[in-house]
């Protein structure tokens, strides 16, 4: 009997929450449209693969050999020769002005030294302000010159060792494949936390929460009733991004999407719990937003969403392990890109369920039905 009454109260809260969502289309629009905009931005604009680096050339040799060398730079597709200059000063100017990221100088004696069997040097200047571009440029330039050197030595004989790299799961190393599964998770996190926090802090601001506390409704019933509609919204969002990813960005989903949804459930619960926890602590929506951003920032930077966890210092790797987003992004990429299933991901699921239960218990304790 009292269980039925409890269900009725939860249902009433959930139904009211749905009316709030319907009456406030702006919030809904921002919640749903913002991730889609972000998806298109990341999907189309951002390419972490460094290609077409703007390059300036000072070819002082002007010989057949120097031309061959330059052509191998162009053929790599990593370098785009934007211009030729004829003095060292001009070469510097291009770099300083930012017109080129890489400057190649082939000295006048390049061909002579090669023919004489001496070591020929070429100068490669790299603008180090963008570390990833610089690193890539140095690596590729080294590889090209090394191959040219070998060609000089071996003449027409084949290379004794040839490596044949095969990149699994994302053969074209396309950025969307790497980014979008992470984006799905981060957007879910933002949405689940922000919406629950907002919905409770708004009631605090309006005084309706105090009115609610004067009724027989229990704190956990308010929490459950509010969580229901937001779980549904978050899942819709997650699925929508997945559909766009598949259709617009042609990222194949190798594993089972149902498996992925089941793994996402505890993650969403953790985020709703975080939202409840934040709303129990803050008395205004502004303060709450600050706290939400505060929880999202570390999740973005430490979860492997942008920067690989494995290349972080040890301490940060341990911190990353404590962030639910890290586990979820790994699971999401696992299912979508590598076709992973329960046998590979059960630990992820277990960890996320533990985090969900811990967060919700903490939030319930904080969200006691007392005003202080």
């Amino acid at each position, binding site marked *: 009997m009292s269980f039925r*009454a409890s269900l009725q109260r939860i249902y009433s809260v959930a139904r009211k929450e749905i009316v709030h969502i319907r009456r406030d289309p702006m919030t809904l629009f921002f919640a749903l449209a913002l991730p889609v905009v972000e998806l298109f931005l990341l999907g189309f604009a951002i390419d972490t693969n460094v290609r077409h680096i703007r390059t300036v050339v000072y070819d002082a040799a002007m010989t057949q050999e120097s031309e061959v060398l330059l052509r191998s730079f162009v053929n790599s597709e990593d370098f785009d020769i934007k211009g030729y200059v004829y003095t060292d000063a001009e070469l510097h100017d291009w770099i300083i002005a930012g017109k080129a990221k890489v400057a190649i100088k082939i000295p006048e004696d390049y061909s002579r030294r090669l023919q004489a069997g001496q070591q020929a040097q070429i100068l490669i200047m790299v603008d180090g302000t963008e570390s990833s571009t610089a690193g890539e440029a140095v690596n590729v330039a080294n590889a090209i010159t090394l191959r040219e050197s070998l060609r000089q030595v071996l003449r027409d004989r084949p290379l004794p060792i040839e490596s044949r790299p095969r990149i699994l799961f994302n053969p074209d190393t396309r950025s969307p494949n790497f980014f979008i599964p992470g984006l799905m998770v981060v957007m879910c996190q933002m949405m689940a936390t922000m919406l629950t926090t907002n919905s409770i802090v708004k009631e605090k601001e309006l005084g309706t929460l105090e009115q609610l506390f004067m009724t027989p409704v229990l704190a956990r019933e308010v929490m459950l009733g509010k969580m229901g509609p937001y779980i549904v919204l978050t899942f819709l969002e997650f699925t929508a991004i997945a559909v766009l990813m598949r259709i617009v960005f042609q990222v194949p989903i190798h594993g089972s999407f149902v498996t992925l949804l089941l793994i996402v459930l505890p993650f969403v619960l953790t985020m709703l719990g975080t939202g409840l926890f934040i709303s129990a602590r803050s008395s205004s929506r502004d303060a709450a937003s600050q706290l939400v951003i505060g929880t999202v920032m570390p999740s973005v930077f430490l979860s492997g969403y942008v920067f690989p966890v494995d290349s972080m210092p040890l301490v940060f790797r341990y911190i990353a392990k404590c962030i639910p987003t890290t586990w979820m992004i790994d699971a999401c990429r696992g299912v979508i890109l590598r076709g992973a299933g329960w046998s590979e991901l059960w630990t992820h699921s277990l960890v996320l369920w533990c985090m969900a239960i811990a967060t919700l218990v903490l939030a319930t304790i904080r969200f006691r039905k*007392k005003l202080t």
Partner: protein
Amino acid sequence: MSLAIDVQGGTIRFGSFTAVNRVSIQVPKGEVFGLLGPNGSGKTTLIRGLCGLLAFSEGHATILGHDVAKQADLVRQSIGYMSQKFSLYADLTATENMDFYSGIYGLSPARQKERQAELIALTGLSPYLDRRTDKLSGGWKQRLALVCALLHEPRLIFLDEPTAGIDPVARRDLWDLLFRLAAQGVTLFVTTHYMDEAERCNRVGYIHMGNLLAFGTPDELKRLPNITPPGTLRIEIAGQDTAGVLARLKRHPGVREATIFGQAIHALVDAPCDLQSLGIEHLAVHQTEPSLEDVFVTLARQQAD
């Protein structure tokens, strides 16, 4: 006579600050109790304590026979609460707000329908049912809030400044409603700043900095010995130029208190008092009873001294 509210030495502290200090109130069922006091004197805190929303640091409170500390759920099921600031959902319509609270109080669909119809008839809310709550005027908002607080047929209703900021007609209508409820045996606990509202209550209390300075029927309070001490008289002086007369009165050694009430001055003077020197022979001076306002002002001054 059974009591709807029985507080014995109720004390609520926040850290070292005592918001409510050893307050004892007994209100019989079916009465209208008015609690007065300046802002921040502890009225709302006391109500929150009585609803079980704040725990009493000391003392004991029973609401409709339920111990507030131990049976908060039973208390909440049997009370209604209407807060000083409007606290319904502004983006929901009147009906949606009613439906929500019906669900929260666990009304069956049939009971909900019946009860809403009764209350809509009682308050005359029917033209506004589909209107968003934030589009209602202050008076209608308060009526809707009252309806939402009444859906589960509470035997006791707490109304925290229910008439603050609504127009005089709506104010009178609301009080008529409240008395109709009281006639049905519902106990009302009302806080207010309006003296005319206080005069209409069966019992009033005056709280000042957490201390309940007076508690009783309005007549009992007016006859309190320290309101009109022996050897003094309360007089009313009616006539022109009240402001000028007031200034002269205040300089007179035999006048203890003087305040303007509309076209008249209420004063507390030593008896016998020689007012001839003030040049007010042409004005009508007669002895009068203290008003409730006189009572509360006097109590607050005495407390301050």
